[in-house]
């Protein structure tokens, strides 16, 4: 099993690497087109800001590489947002894999959302063995609206997509690598896809 993590200017990939190690996977971190394209699984992590991340991906032609991946891909947090059509963060046109728009949380509640929240209406094998209303760890200020691609929902001031899927592309707004046993289950499920 060859698992690659997309190397770019956003995110602390160390925790994703360690989480994979805990389930017996030694992943590589790379921005090399051939290595990414020939991997069995690709993880697109991300903690950071959308416009500078997109700019970097374009400079390195990683946008094209990611769009053309045929194997299962898992976007995490900012990675998921960059897989959508557009983000209000920095008024950024993103990869457009999912036609969702990314909006900022507005309302009388704390932003960013930091902490454990539930996921529900779970779909696809990514959530095999994960119970409805399981808690996952979230850290974000922007969210994806509900759409036909939604495979998990969460409520924080409003209901939004905490997970998306289209063809071989999967994504989670929360951090499975930091979400205790349930998060580990999700990573194991992804590796088995």
């Amino acid at each position: 099993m060859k698992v690659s993590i997309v190397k770019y200017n956003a995110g602390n990939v160390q925790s994703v690497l360690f989480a994979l190690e805990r389930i017996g996977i030694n992943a590589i971190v790379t921005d090399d087109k051939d290595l990414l394209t020939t991997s069995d699984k690709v993880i697109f992590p991300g903690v950071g800001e959308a416009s500078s991340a997109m700019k970097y991906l374009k400079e390195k032609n990683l946008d094209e590489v990611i769009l053309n991946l045929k194997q299962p891909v898992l976007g995490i947090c900012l990675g998921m947002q960059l897989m959508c059509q557009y983000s209000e963060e920095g008024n950024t046109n993103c990869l457009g894999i999912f036609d969702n728009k990314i909006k900022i949380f507005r309302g009388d509640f704390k932003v960013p959302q930091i902490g454990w929240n539930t996921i529900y209406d779970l779909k696809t094998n990514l959530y095999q063995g994960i119970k409805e209303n399981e808690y996952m760890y979230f850290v974000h200020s922007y969210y994806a609206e509900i759409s036909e691609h939604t495979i998990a929902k969460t409520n924080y001031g409003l209901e939004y997509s905490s997970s998306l899927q289209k063809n071989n592309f999967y994504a989670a707004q929360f951090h499975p690598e930091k979400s205790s046993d349930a998060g580990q289950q999700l990573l194991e499920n992804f590796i088995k896809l």
Partner: protein
Amino acid sequence: MITKRIIPCLDIKDGRTVKGINFENIKDAGDPVELAIKYAKQGADELVFLDITATNEKRKTLSELVTRIAKHINIPFTVGGGISSVEDVSILLNSGADKISVNTSAVKNPQLIKELANQFGSQCVVLAIDTKFEDNDWHVYLNGGRVKTDLKTIDWAKQAVALGAGELLLTSMNNDGTKDGYAIDITKQISEAVNVPVIASGGAGTMQHFKEIFENGKADAALAASVFHYKEIAIPELKKYLQENNLEIRI
């Protein structure tokens, strides 16, 4: 619904967990990685590691410890103590820390908060404030509580959030180590004044203290050390109690 968080804090000195009372009389409380694993398994929502003897020579030891922790636990953790530059933070985040906390260095150079938020994002910048009630107001203290400043806690909290702090960790020196309960008033004041999560710290002695700081102090998270280290409160029991009292808790 987002949950209230229970956060065991591990004070680190020379690679060991220690606990003092009112920032003094330091006692050994075990191996940090072992404790971290235990707390994660018991249902801790997050962990905080504060290196209370952090100096430049110790930086490498700390980053190695951070990597050992990150390899072994699957919940988020914050590292603090003696962090004073973008470079320090970069090393700790690359070692596997999810967030870092700054305290004294941010008071001395508030722009540090802005630089860290710009470079790494507000989500990983926790501002720790040690506060003490004196002369009718809450004041900010530095250097582990040894140095008083002219800053009022509420003003500093607001300024830090405006600069980009993503969370506040508020320790009341009047309450720390007393086991008489958290400082409800100042926690509530700060929590209502800023739009980022507030972690209350200092004074936990009973399960009811946690309930009070969430309900009356409007804290988003509660941090404690000795009650967990010395097994006076078990995390599963605490979380069950809070859930039975209608607080949103991850079990």
